[in-house]
């Protein structure tokens, strides 16, 4: 008489769902053979049932039916990739606009970085201030020149008018 301890152990673990698929195929093979010992025979139909369930298959015309449906779907929508994409003129330009925007940003950043670098290299801190004073002094010079002209000509004009007044009074 053979020792069935191993099978019994496997079966115990099988009920607890602790066996691996490999161990379960050992059980399956054991219970589907012809001479299962009497004390284990009661479990044989369970494994035999799984065996029969495993071999169930679709009816013979299944393949033809599904292939016909696939073919019909193919002719209805012949080019899969085309259907999703519809481009408006603006959308067509989107990649171009995007590229242009990136270039613009890069140029701006690059230019300002260059300016900053040049400024630092020349040891200048804020050109803004010198430019401002220069403008101011030049403007002030022009203004004072103008004022001077006025101040020079104004007394003469006043004298002129005074003389005219006095001659009128004399008349």
């Amino acid at each position, binding site marked *: 008489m053979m020792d069935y301890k191993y099978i019994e152990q496997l079966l115990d673990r099988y009920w607890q*769902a602790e066996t691996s698929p490999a161990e379960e195929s050992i059980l399956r093979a054991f219970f589907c053979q012809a001479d299962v010992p009497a004390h284990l025979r009661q479990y044989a139909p369970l494994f035999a049932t799984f065996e029969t369930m495993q071999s*169930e298959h679709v009816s013979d015309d299944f393949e033809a039916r599904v292939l016909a449906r*696939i073919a019909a779907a193919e002719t209805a929508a012949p080019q899969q990739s085309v259907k999703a994409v519809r481009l408006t003129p603006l959308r067509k330009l989107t990649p171009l606009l995007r590229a242009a925007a990136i270039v613009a940003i890069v140029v701006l950043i690059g230019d300002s970085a260059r300016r900053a670098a040049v400024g630092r290299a020349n040891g200048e801190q804020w050109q803004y201030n010198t430019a401002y004073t220069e403008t101011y002094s030049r403007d002030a010079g022009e203004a004072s020149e103008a004022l001077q002209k006025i101040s020079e000509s104004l007394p003469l004009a006043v004298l002129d008018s005074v003389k005219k007044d006095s001659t009128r009074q004399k008349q």
Partner: protein
Amino acid sequence: MTDIDFRRDLLPLRDRLFRLALRITLDRMEAEDVAEDVLVRVWERRESLREVESLEAYCLTTCRNLALDRSAKAVAQHLSLDDEAATGQTTAHMGDDAHDPQATMEQHERIAAVRAAIATLPETQRTALMLREEEGRSGAEIAAIMHLTEANVKVILCRARRALRSKLAPHL
């Protein structure tokens, strides 16, 4: 994954999908319809499925969802007689090598009893049993297909097997 080829990648799954759908709907006609729908649907979506890790697991999940949708509609006939009819048909080849007609009859009856017992289990248990006992899937694979944890799958399998053992004890 390379391009999906219908005949190479999808068509060979037909019996597997059919059996999973059959365990859920318990109706051969319904199950064939489900299997057909799964194949057509997955084929139509093939462009978006190139990155899917396992096409087969994806098909099985889709199949279960479709079958559940259908059987929810026909929930009134949960334990259908069609399954009993299917039992007789599919067990016919069992015991071909058993020449004793009496023994063959008994074998058929026992298998029919086990199938009837399986049909009374909850759907999750029937599905997990199918994936494990018929397909030999690991706990992790079953968990992925059924959107459960491995621990859940183990509990479900354990309950299913114990239920079968206890329900069938008198018949065996």
